[in-house]
């Protein structure tokens, strides 16, 4: 039985070290130390306070489970989800078998299907090779007898089917992973608003998604093809607004949104390839005025994919939590000039096309650059191999860490 403040805090420290970050640990200890201090100043003894607080192991279990769920959410893998599942089961004193048996069964099924898919790809490739050899009329002495001899189409069919099996399997595994995390958090799927926003030719229109008291925004943009402009500042209480200008050809943007705790998640998609039709493409760059604008009021997690088309992001006035950008084909411009929001990590992947990055001078920035083909121009940074850094004069300036993978095209980075 724990009877002193020191014992209580020592248990928390011992049992949480390595599970949560040092900063979080200090915050937790400070909180409990404060509880003891105030309690004692009101004439309660350490022993009374310990009894009222209850078993410190229970506190440890709570904090560990919450932290592991958070980790599984950030990095969804079988391992992290497994840990989070274990911790939560433990916390609620449930029979482990009730959760672990289905989890293991699911993992085995997904694993077996994956292996089957891989076997089909390998087998298909070998059969394809044999079929081509035969077609070319090359006599091949095989150590085994093959009957009937494979046709090219059969071989190709097996190969392609293998790929499809793997894609579907991975997708389903991801889906179940997300579902498990949601379940662990004890949340039912949130209410969703969804619809599409058809940009009309001619007159500009604006469509807004409300804030609804959200304290943070998680925005995901997926563009099949098209120019993407994203900036900051919305009217009034809108969290995200979309404005259409004179689009060359019409293609609806579809959106959906839901609340997750105090975070509003918004998805915006344009899967239609009709923007990519050359004859409809606006000849004048300024003809395109459609854009997405994001509220400056809340911290934002931004995840953007554009498969084909130019991407221009003006993020200097936002406060970012994280930034993920994937642009397959097309120019990418990311402007963080004047950024004074929170610290964040960014990952930028650019396939084919030039990449221009404007970074704020007065932030502490670390840039790790992996580059394929193309020139490079990095101004105002201290260079050390693939890593480029700037150090802000003020120690409390935002810290930005950016990993860049550039395929083909010039990279320009400037600190302004």
């Amino acid at each position, binding site marked *: 039985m724990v009877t002193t403040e020191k014992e209580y805090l020592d248990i928390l420290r011992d049992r949480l070290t390595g599970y949560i970050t040092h900063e979080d640990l200090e915050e*937790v200890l400070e*909180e*409990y130390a*404060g*509880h003891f*201090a*105030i*309690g004692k*100043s009101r004439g309660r003894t350490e022993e009374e306070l310990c009894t*009222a*607080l*209850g*078993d*410190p192991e*229970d*506190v440890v279990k*709570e*904090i560990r489970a*919450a932290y592991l769920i*958070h980790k599984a959410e950030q990095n969804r893998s079988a391992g992290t989800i497994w840990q989070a599942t274990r911790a939560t089961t433990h916390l*609620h004193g449930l029979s482990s078998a009730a959760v672990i048996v289905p989890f293991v069964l699911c993992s085995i099924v997904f694993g077996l299907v994956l292996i089957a898919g891989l076997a089909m790809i390998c087998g298909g490739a070998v059969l394809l090779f044999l079929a081509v050899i035969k077609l070319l009329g090359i006599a091949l002495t095989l150590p085994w007898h093959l009957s009937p001899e494979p046709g090219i189409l059969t071989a190709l069919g097996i190969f392609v089917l293998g790929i499809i099996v793997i894609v579907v399997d991975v997708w389903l595994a991801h889906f179940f992973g997300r579902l498990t995390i949601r379940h662990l958090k004890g949340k039912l799927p949130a209410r969703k608003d969804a619809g599409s926003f058809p940009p009309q030719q001619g007159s500009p229109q604006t469509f807004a998604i409300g804030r*609804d*008291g*959200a*304290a*943070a925004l998680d925005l995901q943009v997926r563009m099949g093809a098209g120019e993407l402009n994203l900036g900051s500042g919305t009217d009034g209480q809108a969290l995200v607004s979309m404005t259409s200008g004179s689009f060359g050809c019409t293609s609806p943007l579809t959106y959906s949104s839901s609340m997750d*705790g*105090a*975070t509003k998640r918004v998805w915006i998609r344009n899967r239609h390839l009709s923007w990519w039709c050359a004859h409809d493409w606006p000849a004048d760059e300024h003809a395109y005025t459609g854009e997405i604008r994001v509220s400056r009021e809340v911290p934002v997690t931004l995840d953007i994919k554009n498969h084909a088309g130019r991407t221009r992001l003006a993020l200097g006035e936002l406060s970012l939590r994280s930034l993920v950008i994937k642009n397959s084909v097309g120019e990418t411009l990311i402007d963080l000039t004047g950024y004074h929001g929170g610290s964040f990590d960014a990952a930028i992947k650019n396939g084919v096309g030039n990449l221009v990055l404007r970074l704020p001078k007065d932030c502490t920035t670390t840039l790790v650059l992996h580059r394929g083909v193309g020139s490079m121009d990095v101004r105002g940074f201290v260079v050390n191999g693939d890593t480029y850094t700037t150090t802000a004069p003020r120690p409390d300036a935002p810290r930005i860490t950016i990993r860049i993978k550039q395929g083909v095209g010039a990279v320009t980075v400037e600190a302004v």
Partner: protein
Amino acid sequence: MNIQFKKGVIEICVLCVLAKKDCYGYELVDEISKKIDIAEGTIYPLLHRLKDEGLVTTYLQESGEGPPRKYYRLTDAGRSKEHEQRDEWVHFAASVNALLEGS
């Protein structure tokens, strides 16, 4: 009372207490444990989670005695969550009571 049973209700209690006024940790814990018998220590992890979810924020304020205290305050999202959960609870409790009295 069953511990799982209590856990779900504690979140509503925390939100309701904070809806009335901002509290520092000890004050909040004290307020709740006066009415409900619960391991006080488990309220702090709950506060931490509510903060992570953006339902509460914290700020430091000087106190007459000792170091500055960390106060918890409901955010707008916390406030609407409080309304929502309070309504749900009232409905639920009324239904349960009706059933109990009916038997």
